[in-house]
Structures are given as C-alpha cells and as structure tokens.
C-alpha cells in the first residue's frame, strides 16, 4: 500500500502540489487525472522518492519514505516515467538486462525472456531502442518497470503511443498485477482509459479535487437525464414530465427529462407516466460522462 499524507511541494515561490492526501490500497488501481501542470508528475516523483515533499509524507507498506529508506523502498516500486527513457544504443534485451542486474534478479535471463514474450517484444529483442517505434519503446519501458515484479506501480501515461490491441493487453496485465496484490497509481489524460481500468479516480489540480469511484464522481454532477421512448407522440405527455423538470422536452415519440439523481428520480417519473396512460417502450437513464465531471470539477477548483 502507498499512502500520501498532506503532500505539498513548492519550487521557489510556486506551489505545485498542495496538501494532497490519498492512499492506494493493495489490489487497487487509482487513476490520477488532471490538466497539464496540475502536479501529477511531481506527485508521482514524490511517491517514487525521487523528490522530497516540502511538507507531508509518503509511506510504502507502512514504512516512511525517507532518504535513508528510499534505496530499499525503491526496490518495491516499478516506475514508468513520462518518456520511455531507454538507452538508445542498447538493444531492448540489453536495456532489460542492465535493469535486471540493478534489481539483482535471480534467473534474469528467464525473467527477461518471459517479459519480452508478455509484451510481444521477442522479435525485437535484438533491435536497438533507437530503432523502435513509439509504441514499441513504450512497451519496452513498461516491461522494464514490471521486470522485478514490484508491489507498487507508478505509471505515468502508460498507454501513450500504444495501439488498441496492446492497450488491451496492458490493461489485462494491470488487472493481473492488481489481482496479485499490487497497488497501482496511473497518471493519464485519457478519461475513458481511467474509467475502464481504475477502481478509483483522483482529480488533481494542485490540490486533490476529488477521489472516488467513477460512478460516485458522476453522481456529484447531478446532471443526468432520463430518455423515455413512447409508442405514440410524446408531446401528449409533456405536461407529466414537466412536473419533474420544467425544461423537459419532447421530440416525436421521445421525452427527455433532466434529473438530479437518476437512481431516485427515474422510477418516480416512469410511474407517473404509466399512471397517465403513456405507452412506454423504453426507458434509458443517462449519466454524465466522466469528461463532464472532470471539466466541471476542475473548472470549479480554486486556483
């Protein structure tokens, strides 16, 4: 488990991260979302022990991350940096071999072979890193970050440059690591990706704006709507819908009613329409996209 407590980091007069507190539990994936310059990379670096917080603390499996404990604790962390950071003149295999030695892996050759196989890099193992495509480089960097089977994974934009097929296999791999008990923090700009893979989403904009399950975050926006399709002209039942939403609209056989809490309001609206004799064919409750929630919460965040 990795925990940040009141993390603050300033560079001169500028505070980049302010009073950020959150935890990533064992067997959990948390996605860290935020606009450029929100402090995601700085937060990641503090959690990896690369830079010290101005105030606050980081603990890994209950042990405080300090300059003294940093060396040992970094052995438990797999860190994927924003750029792949491969040694260009070395081959993919050589890049992994050096890191295997740094982590003092036993049976390094076997581990590297398995890793190359997992990331479908076996055919490119003898290629120099400079010769690889962007996606291949990202895969090699991911293979490097996971080589020593870390219990804490800090991944900065892991899906960047990956094609959909590889993205899916990486997602599957992260699922496996989660099932194996890893605590995984993923920084991403891709809201859809965050929603697909993360148990919780943390919105960061200098401060931690929110951290919750994607569904719970959506509920905070209170802007869902219920679409009711009828077997007849919907305008005949618009007066019923407007009891719940004065802005309700009809078009052809469809009624659109805005609701604050879809879970609570939808059954009530459907009951009222049914009681009024509306021939209901289909009811659909549509929640706001995570993107809407993100823009709303980030937009409201104090600067």
């Amino acid at each position, binding site marked *: 488990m990795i925990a940040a407590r009141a993390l603050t980091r300033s560079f001169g007069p500028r505070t980049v991260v302010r009073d950020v507190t959150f935890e990533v539990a064992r067997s959990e994936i948390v996605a860290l979302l935020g606009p450029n310059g929100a402090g995601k990379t700085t937060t990641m670096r503090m959690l990896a022990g690369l830079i010290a917080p101005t105030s606050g603390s980081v603990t890994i499996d209950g042990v405080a991350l300090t300059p003294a404990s940093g*060396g040992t604790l970094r052995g438990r962390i797999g860190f994927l940096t924003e750029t792949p950071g491969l040694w*260009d003149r*070395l081959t993919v295999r050589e890049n992994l071999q*050096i890191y295997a030695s740094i982590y003092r892996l036993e049976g390094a050759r076997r581990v590297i072979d398995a890793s190359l196989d997992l990331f479908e890099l076996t055919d490119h193992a003898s290629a120099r890193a400079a010769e690889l495509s962007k996606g291949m480089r990202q895969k090699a960097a991911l293979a490097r970050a996971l080589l020593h089977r870390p219990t804490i994974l800090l991944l900065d934009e892991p899906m960047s440059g990956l094609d959909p097929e590889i993205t899916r296999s990486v997602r599957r791999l992260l699922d496996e690591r989660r099932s194996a008990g890893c605590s995984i923090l993923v920084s991403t700009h891709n809201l859809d990706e965050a929603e697909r893979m993360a148990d919780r989403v943390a919105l960061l904009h200098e401060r931690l704006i929110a951290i919750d399950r994607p569904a719970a975050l959506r509920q905070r926006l209170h802007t869902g709507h219920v679409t009711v399709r009828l077997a007849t002209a919907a305008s005949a039942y618009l007066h019923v819908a407007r009891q719940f939403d004065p802005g309700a609209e009809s078009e052809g056989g469809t009624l659109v009613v805005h609701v604050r809490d879809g879970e609570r309001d939808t059954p009530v609206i459907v009951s009222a329409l049914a009681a009024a004799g509306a021939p209901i064919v289909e009811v659909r409750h549509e929640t706001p996209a995570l993107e809407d929630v993100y823009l709303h919460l980030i937009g409201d965040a104090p600067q």
Partner: protein
Amino acid sequence: MTRLRALVAKELLDLRRNRGALLPVAIVTLMSLALPFTVTIAIPAMTGSPLGDDSDLVRVSAVAGVHDRLTPTGRVQLFLFQQFLMMFLLIPITGAMALAAHSVVGEKQARTLEPLLATPIATWELLISKVLGALLPTLAIAVAGLVLYFAGLVVFAEPGVAAAMATGRTAILIAFVGPVAALVSLQAAIVISSRVNDPRTAQQFGVLIIIPLSALLVAQFTGAIWLSTPALAFIGLGLVGVWILLTVFSVALFDRETILTRWK
C-alpha cells in the same frame, strides 16, 4: 558490486556502439606518438643535424640524470622522450572531456536518468560507474599508445635509450600518476556534468581541467622544473587525496531532485 558492474557494462556497451566518442582520445594518442618521434628522430635525420651537436640541448638534458653509456645524441633523446612521456597524461584527460563531461548531462538530456534514479542504485554507484566507464577505455587507449611509444624507442632511438627510459620514475609516471590524474580529471568532469544543463557547458568547463597539466608540461619543457621520482610520487599521492575529496564532493553535490526538476 552487481549494480556497479551492470552500470559499467552499460557504459562500455554504449561506448562500443558510439566509437566516434573515442575519436578525440585516439587523435591525442596519435599526436602523442607522432610528435616526439618527429622532433627527436625525423627532423634531425632530415636536417642532418644530430641532437648531440646542440650544446644547449646536451646541457639541459643533464637534468634527466647521468647516463655515461649513452652518446650525447642518446642523452638528448632520452631527455626529450621523457618529457614527451608527460603528454600521455593528456590522453585520459581528453577522455574526461569527451566522455565524462557528457555522461550525466547526456543521460539527463536523453531522459534515461529518471528511470535509473527510480531504482535502488546509490549515488556513489552511479557516479563511480560513470568514472570507470570513461576511465577504462581511455586507459586502454593510453596503454596501447605507450606500448607503441616504447616499441618506437626500441626501433628508432639510439641504442640504450629505451633501456634508460625503463626507470622507477617512468613506472610511477605511467602506472600511478597517469591513472590517478585521469581519475581526478574524470571525477571533476563528472561533478561538472551533474551540475550543468547542457553538454556544451560541461565540455567548456572540462577544458579548464587541462590548464594545470599544461602548465606542468610547459614548465618541464622549458627546464624550469624537473619532476624527480619522489616529486612524481608525491604528486601522485596528492592526486589520490584530491580524487577522494572530489568523489566525496561529487556524491554530496549530486542532487537527484535538482537534476530532475531542472530538466527542460
């Protein structure tokens, strides 16, 4: 030691794929070989004026010691070849500028340093690997140059000159002062490299390293000073002290945080 070995292996592997980086070292080595033989053997042979005919040179060469069994030309050759031997100290220093100055800042620019710093490696392991990664190939080139130098002495110099060169002074210069001077310059270059943002700045600062050694060379050539065997041993020991200080200094100065956050 596993980590240190791995990092040194990486440095050597990287250099093997980028042999052009060793070109300046190779050029200095060739110059260090060509210049003494041109001045001491080729020019006198072409002009028909043996070095032993120059009374000033014969007088100055006496500082190299009494060598009764050598001809006057042989004594001057011995003196000059001993002076030129100092040029071999320049080889690893050139290596320092060409390789070490680029090492840390080069990794910074290539963005390969951050993943490395996120591993359990210690700062001293990283810095020593950078030093060894630059020292080993440049020393190898210097040793190859020295072998050719002595082979040239045997072939081209007056009889007895090569044997007269094989002294404790020469051994101290080659096996002790040279490598330690290289270590000092490499360590200084690493300090510079981890404090600047740009390889060009590192190399410009690296040039400063050559100044004290150049002063020593000029002083020797003009006869202003003659570094005796004890003097050389004393200089070597002093350099060991400087290297230890520089190593401690470079570990203390290596601020991971500043290096990472100063990246642009």
